[in-house]
């Protein structure tokens, strides 16, 4: 997948934090089970009795279409999960590689060498990210692409420390 340079070693491989994915997936799951909940409570719904009778008399069709709907939602969940799962951060002893899967047909692979890093900033915004310790890491670079953003990673301070330590090592190596 990633071709490493000569003498290049992987220090860290990290996926994004799972919570943003779960928060996106919950509405989909709720939508998928909605037809079944509606059917359970059909008698209690304020609908004319004729319409209720149609639902009850053609329940086999209702369940057939409901399960087809569940199947479509399941496929969307698969796509959503793939988008989450294939987003990877790789830190080697020479560079940082950020891979982002954007939908099924778009993929962004960005990398920055430690020599180009000027500044690292952590951004943790909101109640849940503060509580569960996940957030974004902004890396200012001297390269053409000025800012490099690593989104939704757990323990961003730990990642920042790894980057800072490695940057220092590369700096020392280049000096000698």
């Amino acid at each position, binding site marked *: *997948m990633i071709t490493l340079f000569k003498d290049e070693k992987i220090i860290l*491989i990290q996926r994004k934090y799972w919570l943003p994915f779960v928060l996106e997936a919950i509405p989909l799951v709720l939508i998928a089970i909605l037809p079944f909940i509606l059917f359970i409570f059909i008698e209690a719904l304020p609908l004319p009795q004729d319409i209720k009778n*149609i639902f009850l008399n*053609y329940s*086999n*069709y209702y*369940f*057939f*279409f409901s*399960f*087809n709907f*569940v*199947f*479509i939602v*399941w*496929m969307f969940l*698969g*796509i959503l999960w*793939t988008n989450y*799962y*294939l987003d*990877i951060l790789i830190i080697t002893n020479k560079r940082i590689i950020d*891979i982002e*899967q954007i939908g*099924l047909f778009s*993929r962004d692979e960005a990398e920055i060498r430690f020599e180009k890093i000027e500044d690292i900033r952590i951004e943790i915004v909101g109640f849940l990210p503060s509580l569960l310790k996940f957030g974004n890491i902004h890396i200012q670079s001297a390269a053409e692409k000025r800012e490099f953003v690593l989104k939704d990673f757990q323990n961003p301070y730990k990642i920042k420390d790894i980057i800072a330590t490695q940057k220092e090592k590369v700096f020392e190596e280049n000096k000698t």
Partner: protein
Amino acid sequence: MDLNILNTIATFVFLINLIVFIIFSWILNYHWGRYEISISRTFSIRKIYFTISTIILFIILLLFLNLK
């Protein structure tokens, strides 16, 4: 209610769903194989995705046969 129309719609929906599933599964399978780092995890992902898909498809098929 005309059951013939409903049956035609049901058949159409089932076939479209099946075709979409085959296409999407092929694309997802390609992505997992091409871009995933861990081979053992890819195997687990495929196992979970295709097992649940097969179960749902089987239920749909049973319901479809029950319509006729």
